[in-house]
C-alpha cells in the first residue's frame, strides 16, 4: 500500500515569509507555548469535568436516529427508486463480475463448489499470464506462491481474495484510466479532481465500509466498490501525471505536423505514458489487496476473513498462517505488475534476449499446456480441489501457536515489562491528559494552536472538525484514538529522522534499506497486527506498535529524500568550514529538510491513524472499536457509522494542521539556502 504519490503542494521556499518573518515566528511560538500552559493549568484544576465520556454500550440520539435510518433503508430497499434504478443494478452488475471470477478461480455456485478451472488450472493460467505480461521469473514465483497456498490449506481463500482483487482492479482501471487521461489532457479536470483524490487518500480504509454496507449490503459487491474507491487515486494520479509530463519538444514536434487532439493522445501521450500508467496499476493493485482483506469486516470472502476471525479469537497460529498467504499474494502481485511496468518501458522489447517471434511461439505453446491443465482440472478431482493430504497448514498453525506461547511465557519479563512500562509511563498519562481535560478547554487549545500554525482559515477548519466530533457524540473515544495516534507518530518521526538521516547521508545504507521499506509499504495494513499480537497479546499497545511499523517506511523515505535532496554545494560549504558531522546534521541537514520532515509527519500521521483504527481488532479502544462493534451488532450500527465519520474529521484535522506546519518556511531555512542559488 504505497500511497506516496500524492501531488502535494510542492515544498515552497520563497516569498511567503518575506513579510516580517521574525515577528510572525515569535508570535507563533508564543501562541503555541501559551496554549500549552493554559492547557496544563486547566488540566490541573479542572480535570475530570466535562469529559463527555460515553460508555461503550450507550448511544446518543444521533446514533439512534442513524440506527433508524439503517432500518429505514433496509425496509425501503425494494421500492425506493434510487435503490431500484441505481444502487441495486450497480450492485448486481458488480456482483456478476465478482461471481464470474470467484467461479473461475475459487468456487462455482453449483455442485461440489469446485472452481471452474480447478487449482491446477488456476496455477497454470495465472503463471502463464505472469509470463505474458512479465517474465519467466515472476511466472515461477506465481506458480510457487499459489501451490504454497494449497499446501497451507488456504487455496480457496486465497483464490477468493484474488478474484475480488481482480474484479476491483478491473473496475478501477475502467474508471481510473479514462479519468486520469481526462485529468492529464484538461487542466481544469485535474483541478477539480485533485482535492477529491487528496481527501480520499487521507481516509483510513476502515471508514468506507459501513456506509457502503448500508447502501450495497454486505458481501462481495460492497467489498469491491469500497476497494474501487480506495484503490482508484493512485492510477488516476499516475495516468494524469504520465499524460501531462510529455516533453515539451516532442509535443511541439508532433503539433507541427498537424496532429489532432486524438492523434496526439494515441500516438504520443499514451505510448509515452505507458510505463507510468502501469506503475499506477501496480499501486492500485496493492491498495486493492489491502482493502479486499479489510473488507472481510463486511463479509468479503477470502484470507481477510481467516485473519479477522483468528484475531478475534486470539488464535495467533491461524492468523500467522493466513497472514503469510496475504504477504505472499502481495509479493506476487507486486512483482508481476512491476515486471509488467518494466516491459512497458519504451524500447524494452528491443533489449530482449529472444526475438518477438520466438516469444509469441513460446507463448502460444505454453498456452496449449495451460489449456491442457485446465481440461485436466475439469475432469480429475485431484486437479480440481487441492489434495487434502498435502496440507501443512495445521502444522504451521500449531508451530506458530506454540512458538508464540513460548515467546510470551519466556520473554514474559521483556515483552510484558516493556509493554507495561510504555503503557503506564507514556500512553496512559498522555491519554488521560487528553480524555480528562474538559472538552471546551481542549477545543480552545487545539483551535489556538491551529491559528498559530495557519491563521484564521485553519482555525475555522479545526473548530468545525472538532464541533462535528462533539456533535457525533464521540469526543472521548476520539481523544483515545488521538492519544494513540500522536504517541505512535512521535515514535515514527524519531525512526524517520534516525533512519532517514542515515539513508540520506549514505547511498549504501539507502540501497540496503530501500527495498525493505518498499516491501513494507506494499503489505496490507492489518497483516502488521499479526506478529505483534503474538508477542504482546491483545492490547492497545500492540495496535500502536503495528501502527509504528506500518507508518515508519513512509516517514523514513520522505525524510531520506529530503536529506538527499540538499544541494551538494551547501554540504560542501558546511564541511569545508569545519563542521563536525553532528553539526552538519543538526545545523544544516535537519533544518533544511524541515519541510520534508513536516511532510513525513503528515504522511506518518495518516498511516498511523489508519492502523490505530484497524488495531481495534486486537484490543485498541477508541473510535476503531466503535466501528468494529457497529459491524458486529446491529444495535450499535449508528454509533459505528458516527465513529467512522469522527475518524474522517479527525483525519482532516490532523492532515490540515501538519500541512500548515509544512507550508510555513522558517526564516533560518531560507537564509541557509540562499547562498546555494
Amino acid at each position, binding site marked *: 500500500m504505497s500511497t506516496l504519490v500524492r501531488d502535494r503542494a510542492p515544498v515552497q521556499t520563497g516569498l511567503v515569509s518575506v513579510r516580517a518573518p521574525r515577528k510572525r515566528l515569535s508570535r507563533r511560538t508564543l501562541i503555541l507555548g501559551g496554549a500549552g500552559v493554559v492547557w496544563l493549568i486547566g488540566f490541573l484544576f479542572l480535570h475530570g469535568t466535562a469529559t463527555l465520556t460515553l460508555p461503550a454500550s450507550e448511544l446518543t440520539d444521533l446514533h439512534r436516529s442513524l440506527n433508524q435510518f439503517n432500518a429505514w433503508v433496509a425496509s425501503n430497499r425494494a421500492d425506493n427508486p434510487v435503490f431500484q434504478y441505481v444502487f441495486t443494478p450497480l450492485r448486481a452488475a458488480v456482483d456478476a463480475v465478482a461471481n464470474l471470477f470467484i467461479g473461475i478461480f475459487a468456487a462455482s455456485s453449483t455442485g461440489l463448489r469446485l472452481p471452474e478451472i480447478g487449482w491446477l488450472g488456476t496455477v497454470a493460467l495465472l503463471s502463464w499470464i505472469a509470463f505474458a505480461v512479465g517474465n519467466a521469473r515472476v511466472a515461477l514465483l506465481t506458480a510457487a506462491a499459489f501451490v504454497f497456498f494449497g499446501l497451507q490449506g488456504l487455496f480457496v481463500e486465497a483464490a477468493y481474495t484474488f478474484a475480488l482483487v481482480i474484479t476491483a482492479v478491473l473496475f478501477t482501471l475502467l474508471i481510473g484510466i479514462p479519468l486520469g487521461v481526462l485529468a492529464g489532457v484538461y487542466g481544469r479536470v485535474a483541478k477539480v479532481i485533485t482535492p477529491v483524490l487528496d481527501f480520499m487518500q487521507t481516509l483510513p480504509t476502515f471508514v468506507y465500509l459501513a456506509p457502503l454496507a448500508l447502501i450495497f449490503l454486505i458481501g462481495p459487491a460492497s467489498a469491491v466498490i469500497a476497494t474501487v474507491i480506495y484503490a482508484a487515486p493512485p492510477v488516476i494520479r499516475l495516468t494524469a501525471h504520465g499524460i501531462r509530463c510529455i516533453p515539451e*519538444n*516532442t509535443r*511541439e*514536434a*508532433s*503539433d*507541427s*505536423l*498537424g*496532429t*489532432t487532439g486524438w*492523434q496526439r493522445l494515441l*500516438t*504520443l501521450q499514451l*505510448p*509515452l505514458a505507458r510505463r507510468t500508467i502501469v506503475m499506477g496499476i501496480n499501486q492500485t493493485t496493492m491498495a486493492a489487496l489491502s482493502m479486499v482483506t479489510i473488507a472481510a469486516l463486511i463479509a468479503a470472502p477470502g484470507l481477510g476473513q481467516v485473519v479477522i476471525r483468528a484475531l478475534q479469537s486470539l488464535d495467533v497460529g491461524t492468523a500467522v498462517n493466513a497472514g503469510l498467504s496475504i504477504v505472499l499474494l502481495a509479493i506476487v502481485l507486486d512483482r508481476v505488475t512491476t515486471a509488467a511496468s518494466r516491459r512497458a518501458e*519504451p*524500447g524494452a522489447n*528491443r533489449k530482449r534476449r529472444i526475438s518477438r517471434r520466438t516469444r509469441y511461439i513460446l507463448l502460444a505453446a505454453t498456452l496449449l499446456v495451460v489449456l491442457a491443465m485446465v481440461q485436466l482440472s475439469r475432469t480429475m478431482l485431484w486437479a480440481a480441489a487441492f489434495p487434502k493430504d498435502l496440507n501443512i497448514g495445521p502444522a504451521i498453525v500449531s508451530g506458530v501457536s506454540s512458538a508464540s506461547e513460548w515467546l510470551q511465557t519466556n520473554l514474559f519479563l521483556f515483552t510484558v515489562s516493556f509493554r507495561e512500562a510504555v503503557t503506564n509511563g507514556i500512553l496512559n498519562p498522555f491519554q488521560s491528559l487528553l480524555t480528562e481535560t474538559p472538552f471546551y478547554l481542549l477545543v480552545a487549545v487545539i483551535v489556538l494552536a491551529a491559528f498559530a500554525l495557519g491563521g484564521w482559515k485553519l482555525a475555522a477548519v479545526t473548530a468545525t472538525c472538532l464541533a462535528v466530533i462533539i456533535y457525533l457524540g464521540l469526543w472521548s473515544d476520539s481523544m483515545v484514538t488521538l492519544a494513540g495516534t500522536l504517541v505512535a507518530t512521535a515514535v515514527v518521526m524519531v525512526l524517520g529522522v534516525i533512519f532517514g538521516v542515515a539513508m540520506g547521508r549514505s547511498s549504501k545504507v539507502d540501497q540496503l534499506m530501500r527495498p525493505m521499506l518498499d516491501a513494507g509499504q506494499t503489505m496490507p495494513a492489518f497483516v502488521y497486527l499479526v506478529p505483534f499480537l503474538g508477542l504482546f497479546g491483545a492490547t492497545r499497545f500492540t495496535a500502536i506498535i503495528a501502527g509504528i511499523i506500518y507508518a515508519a517506511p513512509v516517514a523514513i523515505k520522505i525524510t531520506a529524500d529530503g536529506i538527499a535532496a540538499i544541494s551538494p554545494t551547501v554540504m560542501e560549504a558546511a564541511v569545508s568550514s569545519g563542521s563536525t558531522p553532528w553539526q552538519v546534521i543538526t545545523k544544516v541537514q535537519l533544518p533544511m529538510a524541515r519541510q520534508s520532515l513536516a511532510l513525513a509527519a503528515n504522511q506518518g500521521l495518516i498511516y498511523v491513524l489508519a492502523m490505530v483504527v484497524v488495531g481495534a481488532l486486537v484490543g485498541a479502544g477508541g473510535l476503531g472499536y466503535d466501528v468494529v462493534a457497529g459491524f458486529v451488532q446491529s444495535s450499535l450500527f449508528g454509533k459505528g457509522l458516527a465513529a467512522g465519520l469522527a475518524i474522517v474529521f479527525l483525519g482532516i484535522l490532523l492532515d490540515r494542521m501538519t500541512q500548515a506546519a509544512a507550508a510555513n518556511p522558517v526564516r533560518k531555512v531560507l537564509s541557509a539556502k540562499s547562498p546555494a542559488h
Partner: protein
Amino acid sequence: MSSPDISVRNLWKVFGPGGEKIPKDPELSALSSAELLERTGCNAAVRDMNFDVAKGEVFVVMGLSGSGKSTLIRCLTRLIEPTSGSVLVDGKDVMQAGTGELRELRRRKMSMVFQHFGLLPHRTVLDNVSYGLQIRGAAKNERYARSHEIIELVGLKGYEQHFPDQLSGGMQQRVGLGRALAGDPDTILFDEPFSALDPLIRRDMQAEVIRLHKEMGKTMVFVTHDLSEALKLGDRILIMRNGETVQCGTGDDLVGSPADKYIADFVSEVPRADVLTLKWITDPVAFGTPADAPVLSAGTIIRDAIPTVMNSLCPVLVEDSGKITGQIDRDSILSVIRSTEVAA
C-alpha cells in the same frame, strides 16, 4: 524569384497577461522591451515584424539568444499564437485559418525541424519519418515506401529499424529532417537545427541542407545564432534584436554596409574577402587602364577574383549587367584582406 511564398506583416507576439492590448496602444507599443516589461509585466518577443520570403529562397533569421527568433518562426504556423498582425502563405492569411485549415497547412505546406530534434522515443527511425504521413492518413505501404526514399535521401539507409536513442545527435537530426521532408511540404522551417551538434557534424549537416536545397528547391526559413552558418546558407538574412528587425538583406549587404553599430560589431569578425563581392571595392576606371584589360562581374566574391587580379599586369575591369562600372587592382584587394586579418 517569383511572388512571395510567405509574407509577414505587422506581426506581434507579446507574452504575459494583457499582452493583446499592447500592439494597439500607440504609447505602449513605442516603449522599449525593458520599459514594457517594467510597466506592464509583458514580454514582447516579436515586435511589429515585416518581411517576405520568396519561393525557393533560403531565408535566415539571426539574432542573439532571447531575441525572439524561435517565437517568430513558431508564429508562422501558429505553434505559438501571434498576438496580432498577419502571416500570408500563398496569399492566404494563416491568422484567419480555422483549426482544420491550420492542420492542413502544417500537414502539407510547412514542416519544421527543431533544435532538440523532438523525435518520438518509442518509434523507430522509419516510424518517426513516416509519422507525418500517418497523421494525415496515408496508407501503411504508401507511407513506408515514401519514408524509405526519404531515409535514403537524408543518408540513413540501414538505420530504419533503429530507435532514436541508438543514434548520434547528427543522425537524430537527419531523422528530424527526414520527418519534415516526408510530407513533401513547400516550406521547411528550421529552428537552430544544428546548434546542439558538434562543429564537424554541423558542417556536414549544413552541406546536407545546401544539397537538399539544390535538389528539391524548397523554400526554407532558417533560424540560427551563428553568423557563419547564416552567411553560408542564406540567400537573405534578417537580423533581429529584442524582437525587432534591425536589418534584412543579403550577406553581402550586411557585411558591406551594416545598418548600425550593432550589426557592424556582429559582422566585424567575418572574413570579408569571402563574403563581399567586387561591387564593394570598385573604384572609378582610371585614365591609364587599357580597354582590353580582363573583365570580372560585379557579383564575383572577392576571394574568387584574386587569381585574375594577381595574374594581370594592369587593373581589372568590373562589369555589372553588361556595363563597365569601374576597376579593381591589387591594392584594393589587399586592403580588404588586410582589414580582415586585423579584425581577426
